[in-house]
């Protein structure tokens, strides 16, 4: 049974404006796209849900429509059709962070259920696919990845590990401080000295 929760809708101003070089932004773009891929897979989301989230957060001036969302996501260097022609500025990256965390919070229950099942299965030394919620997630994630990414012949074991890592991360991004935590993680991950 879900309990009443304090909903904190963060604003763009709450995320610190941190420096981002082209290399850092490439890393950020790739990771954000993967995180949204994981959200699509675990919650069976489409672009409409993302646009609704953007509108709820007042980000519809940055993520205006399906085309702009498509262009933002295609800016990932991992995408098959990336081609380097699409760029992503810091405000757009921050908008995607807020949108991702909002979606993670909205679909918090299924994310937690999946991670909970993963913990149980791991303790029992059973494969993740033994649980339907995880099996469906992994299947969708691998399919989406192979459809859209350059590295479409990645080993299933590698994709499974990536998918599970992203799923676990989503648990932490679905909480009250999720957007700040994701933003800092993106910057830290993209830091060449980090």
């Amino acid at each position, binding site marked *: 049974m879900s*309990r009443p929760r*304090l909903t*904190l809708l963060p604003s763009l101003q709450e995320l*610190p*404006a*941190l*420096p*981002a*070089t*082209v290399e850092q*932004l490439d890393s950020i773009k790739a990771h954000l796209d993967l995180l949204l891929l994981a959200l*699509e897979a675990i919650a069976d989301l*489409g*672009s*409409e849900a993302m646009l609704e989230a953007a509108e709820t957060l007042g980000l519809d001036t940055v993520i*205006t*429509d*399906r*085309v*702009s969302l*498509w*262009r933002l996501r*295609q800016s990932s260097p991992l995408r098959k059709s990336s081609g380097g022609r*699409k*760029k*992503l*500025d*810091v405000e*757009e990256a921050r908008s995607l962070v807020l949108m991702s965390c909002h979606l993670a919070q909205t679909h918090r229950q299924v994310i937690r259920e999946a*991670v*909970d099942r*993963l*913990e149980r299965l*791991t*303790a*029992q*030394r059973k494969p*993740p696919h033994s649980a339907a919620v995880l099996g469906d997630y992994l299947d969708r994630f691998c399919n*989406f990845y192979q459809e*859209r990414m350059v590295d479409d012949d990645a080993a299933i074991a590698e994709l499974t*590990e*990536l998918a*599970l*890592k992203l799923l*676990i991360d989503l*648990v*932490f991004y*679905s*909480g*009250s*401080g999720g957007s*700040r*935590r*994701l933003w*800092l*993680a993106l*910057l*830290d*991950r993209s830091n060449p000295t*980090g």
Partner: protein
Amino acid sequence: MSDSVLNRYTSDSWSLELTGESSPLSRWTRRPVVKDEHFRLSLLGFETGAAPISWLEGDRPLLERLYQAAESYVQSKLQTPSLTSPPVSARSPRPLALLEPDTELGTLAPLDAEPDSANPFALEADGSLCHRLHYSSPTTQTRTLKLSTIQLADLLDVLDRWQAETLALPQQTAAAPAVATRDFVVPAWGRIAASAAIALGAAGGGIYLLMSQPVETTTAQADVEAAANGAPADFAAGLPQVSTNPSGELPTGSQANQQIFPHRF
């Protein structure tokens, strides 16, 4: 005249209760300012139906140290690119294995390693999905709590909400322990806000005191000014340097073009 306050933050697996006195400074701030804050942190048996375990009680500095330890640990885990990468934290005693089994969640066990002396709390990975939270105090034996990923996320959630909602007045006693907040991500915002609150309160109070007792204001104002002057430097040091962002104007698509874009991309 101060009023006592009671705040409670709950998640599926944790309950955080805080008591303290509401400061009159609250009227000048957007968040309640609390002094002499004490907490009780309990682990809930949300699945087993077990009675809540009152795991820890203490004052605000202790809770801030727990937050610092948990925040730092989780942030280091989020930075790692994969499950098999070792976390940034040097406290991990062994490499992580993908889907390494974990058992006996929420149990207390003796600590097999000394935690960082700067913080009584330390976390380390126990397999890929479990974590061990160590707490050592001068008066009690070191305790270890084994947490699932969900429990760790819930702990951070209640701590995040607590940090977001209240400000604390620094304790004025000489024996108050110095809290290492320099590496604290969120308290950097808290410090600047708290310093602003102190400066605001001091400004109002200072005016009053200047009109009535000018001699006694000297020390208090000097202390407040020192705190206020220190805040911007700390704040600036806590944030990375500003740099120019590579801008890229994204062309906006027409409504007609939306038809060619798939539902998923």
